[in-house]
């Protein structure tokens, strides 16, 4: 059991090492001739106008918020699904209730037009 996660740990180390080694190799091989024009921000060949890091539209985050709700649910579905066969009909009823609340939430968000792009 623990050795399984030891493998994952070793695996993660190898996974980090490979791109770093690759980048080091590339660092040795590649030319390095920076100049201001080359290092300027790409925006189709003209200089950018204004700042990039601004208070941008919040629409994207609305989806992130709805996601959080559903992701909590996902974390609940998995243990439930694994233990489902060992539980009685109660497990089904309980999940129906749970999903019904979620669907209600989704419907609410839908009606509130949180799912539409403004």
């Amino acid at each position, binding site marked *: 059991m623990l050795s399984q996660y030891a493998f994952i740990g070793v695996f993660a180390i190898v996974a980090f090492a490979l791109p770093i080694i690759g980048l080091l190799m590339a660092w040795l091989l590649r030319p390095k001739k920076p100049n201001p024009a080359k290092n300027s921000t790409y925006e189709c060949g003209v200089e950018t106008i204004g700042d990039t890091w601004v208070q941008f539209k919040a629409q994207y985050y609305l989806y992130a918020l709805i996601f959080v709700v559903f*992701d909590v649910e996902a974390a609940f579905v998995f243990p439930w699904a694994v233990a489902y066969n060992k539980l009685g009909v109660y497990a089904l009823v309980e999940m129906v209730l749970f999903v019904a609340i979620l*669907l209600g939430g989704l419907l609410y968000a839908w009606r509130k037009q949180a*799912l539409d792009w403004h």
Partner: protein
Amino acid sequence: MDYIRDFFINFAHSWTTWISGGLPGWAVTVVNFLLGGLILVMMPVIATLALTWMERKVIGRIQNRLGPNRVGPWGIFQAIADAVKMLIKEDIIPDRADRPVFNLAPILIFVGAAMLWAVIPFGRRMIGQDLNIGALYVVAIGSITTVAVLMAGWASNNKFALIGAFRVVAQLLSYEIPMVLSIGVVVLVVGSMRMGTIVESQWVPFCLVLPVAFITYVLAAIAETGRAPFDLLEADSEIVAGYFVEYSGLKFGWFYIAEYGNLMAVSAITTTLFLGGWRGPFAGAAPVLGPLYFIIKTVLVIFVLMWIRGTLPRFRIDQMLAFAWKVLVPAALVNLLWVAAALKLPVPQAVQYAVMLVGNLAILGVTLTLLGQSAKQHAKRHGLAGA
């Protein structure tokens, strides 16, 4: 002959026996872990080398072209030539970028792509580690990609990259829900999150039992890998390359490798969850056939994804998110409940599966009808707007 029949496992045994002659037990484990890790970590790189060539050939044929045919026979070394180019290409970091984050993002995205391979069963007992939470692990590791992409987009300090990063937030998160739910359905039917067990229990491939979960997973997986028609993150015709527009050289290369690694990984996971993994005729008698079946099925899935890429135009962000939340999520939730109910029926498993199939087909039919109706309404609303 017996050795050949289960070649890979027997070879691994021989190897372990051989090195344990001169090493203590813990060292054997470490060496084996490192070796296994190295092989699996190379999977995204191998996938890129093979799949870029395949994609160019496939899309070339779709478009009445030959595809690469200059570097080696049938151009098979094209990918190697590209790899060499990326290695020796100058690395440009924009002056206004957030350097530490900018440099970390390509490493992290590769880690995310590589770590998936730890739980993918290539054949019976041929798996990095058959974790008892394998399916959940897949979902969890998949989220690393989201973070890495967001880091890349934000740190570039570029407007196209920024829009790409924002789209990542909306798109990858939205499609994670249907993906998780459809994996959840499979876990529910099998009663285990072990990838090995999931394959073992598919005496009939789950795509035939749970078509809704299958289709939902494939669509969500396309979106998660950011491939057409859901390639809004990098939408080359709109935001040029999206989140990795400022990357060059090998840093770009790691994004590229991660993309193809993820493509291969989701195809492999689709194969594992829905297409019966390494199962196939005579795979029980000759387990050496298992990996072969596995690879054939995976490549088939990849081919279909490439076919889609060569055919369909791209969705728009609002349509795409609406599709996730208004179509896939409700369908997946209803499917989950139906399958849970079917599992509680006091009948043999085959009958339960039949009930699931009927329900799935019904959900599919209702969803398609509703979609068709809304498309008609949309057409009607705009059909005569200018008259």
